[in-house]
């Protein structure tokens, strides 16, 4: 894992996908095949080769007005969809696993 390039997150799996956070709200997004962004990891374009990965990263970097700090990470592909293999990327794609404080017991 340590020999992965700087902009490839520590991760494992058979494919690469490209992710970033949106500039306006910081929401995690994933690069589709047509180089538009989706908030769903399942819609990410998963590629196997490093050259494909680097081409996607280059495409992502041209959009840095809309997204911040794109990087690649490894995933597995199940039934055609990218599936996160690390807890970090799973939480990032699905949201916090904890209750948010909003609801008050007495005063809702």
């Amino acid at each position: 894992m340590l020999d992965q390039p700087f902009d490839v997150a520590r991760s494992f799996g058979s494919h690469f996908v490209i992710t970033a956070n949106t500039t306006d709200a910081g929401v995690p997004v994933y690069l589709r095949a047509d180089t538009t962004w989706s908030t769903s990891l399942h819609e990410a374009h998963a590629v196997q080769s490093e050259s494909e990965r680097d081409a996607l990263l280059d495409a992502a970097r041209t959009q840095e007005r809309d997204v911040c700090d794109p990087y690649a990470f490894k995933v597995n592909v199940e039934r055609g969809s990218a599936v996160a293999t690390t807890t970090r990327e799973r939480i990032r794609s699905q949201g916090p696993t904890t209750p948010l404080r909003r609801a008050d017991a007495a005063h809702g």
Partner: protein
Amino acid sequence: MYQYDQHDQRIVDERAAQFRGQVERRLAGEITENEFKPLRLQNGLYMQLHAYMLRVAVPYGLLSSAQLRALATIARDYDKGYAHFTTRQNVQFNWPELEDVPAILDLLASVQMHAIQTSGNCIRNTTSDPLAGIAADELEDPRPYCELIRQWSTFHPEFAFLPRKFKIAITGSTTDRAAVRVHDIGIRIIENDTGERGFEILVGGGLGRTPHIAKVVRPFLAYEHLLSYLEAILRVYNRYGRRDNKYKARIKIQVSEWGVEKFAAAVEAEWAQIKDSATKLTRDEIDRIKGRFALPTFEALANEDLDALALTTDREFARFLKNNVRQHRVPGYAAVVVSTKPQGRPPGDVSDTQLDALADLADRFGLGHVVVMHDQNVMMPNVKQADLQALYAELKTWDLHTANAGRVTDQICCPGLDFCNLANARSIPVALRIADRFDDLDYLDDLGDVTIKMSGCINACGHHHVGNIGILGIDKAGVEAYQLMIGGDPGEQASLGKIVGRAFSSDEIVDAVATVLDTYSTLRESADETFLDFYRRVGLDPFKDSLYGSD
């Protein structure tokens, strides 16, 4: 509390206006993220896993009711309805959108608040004792000195790009409730042998990857030299601190590598050149700062018999009196710890409606302000003892009445991998499971004061090294695991916890904590022997035996 003068106000107004322009340029695509990042970080705006996070400075933890209401408005209008109190007495918002941040900073500026220097390699918020100004064992209120440091360090041109971030804590009491020995600089207000008031200066403490207990760099410093001496320390650190390796860049590494004697000699040499310069304090300047603190006016009251009250009231309130009420130096008054840690709630999180309620209750019962505590609770420092029962009843309607201050479930817990970009493991879900497991309040009272502190990574925002029980989340080949350490203490006898043995899985860690507590409960000499005293008497072995057996 300190009231801004025109210069303070102009600084925060101008900074908010400046950042508005920077945000507009970023959103318009005129500047890149790489150009914008250092600008947003200088205004406390981080990018976390799911969203931006804005860290708001709360100087030495002090919040007026007006400021609480502003935080409630931000939580309600610009976030998901809650705020998070941090271990450095600050407030964080986890979900702001970039275009809203200028409006948030304007709102903060309107109540004399800001997010300046809450990130970056600069001097951060100076923290202090939550009982500052009211502690019975206090020599002098440290907050005016905190404020002097805030003003000196804000936009200090020499110290905007230090090797790493820099944290200062001050206490005016003999009991250390500010964890001064685990800060880059710790300051204790003391008197020397001739009764002269001054400071003991400690340096090189810190947690994180390489924890260190601070060492005394100057046993006594006369009050007028506080800023010049701090400046000398910062200059030696700024010039010689390591910039080649981020993990060796904190001042604790420099002090450790040099030895405190060499470090002190370098500071003294630097100080000799500047001690009588413009930063030399005069009594007039200190009095000017003190004069801008609108200190509360206390009524002449007699102490209530709280022990008798505890005996005659219901058990819930009696427990609250015992666990959450602290002594006040003024007769007839008390300080109340408002716990943010009921079952099922992430430690430190408070909703917008609770923030508004705290503001109202502070006005009704607490002379108009509260203090954010470094253990992520909120202290209401000036409550009439005669009002305690009425305050408790009000707190109960807002789910702010949990009587667990200092108990096992009063956990310090960082945001962890549910939010934080640096984390390796989740911490909040573990804290929630611990709170669920130990729901027998009688058992918690029987255990007495035991602190659990938990971090989701080695950066130690959850202060795990100085928890009586420390939990560190790690990534073990892609799977969350938790190291358990025992024996940490941030106080006068500061000590770092020791790792008991192999890490535990997420499924095992709560049982492991239960085993540690049962071991203490079973083997302690008496109910008066605290967890820490027990550990210091017996060491790790009984815990190892009960946790790992013949592993």
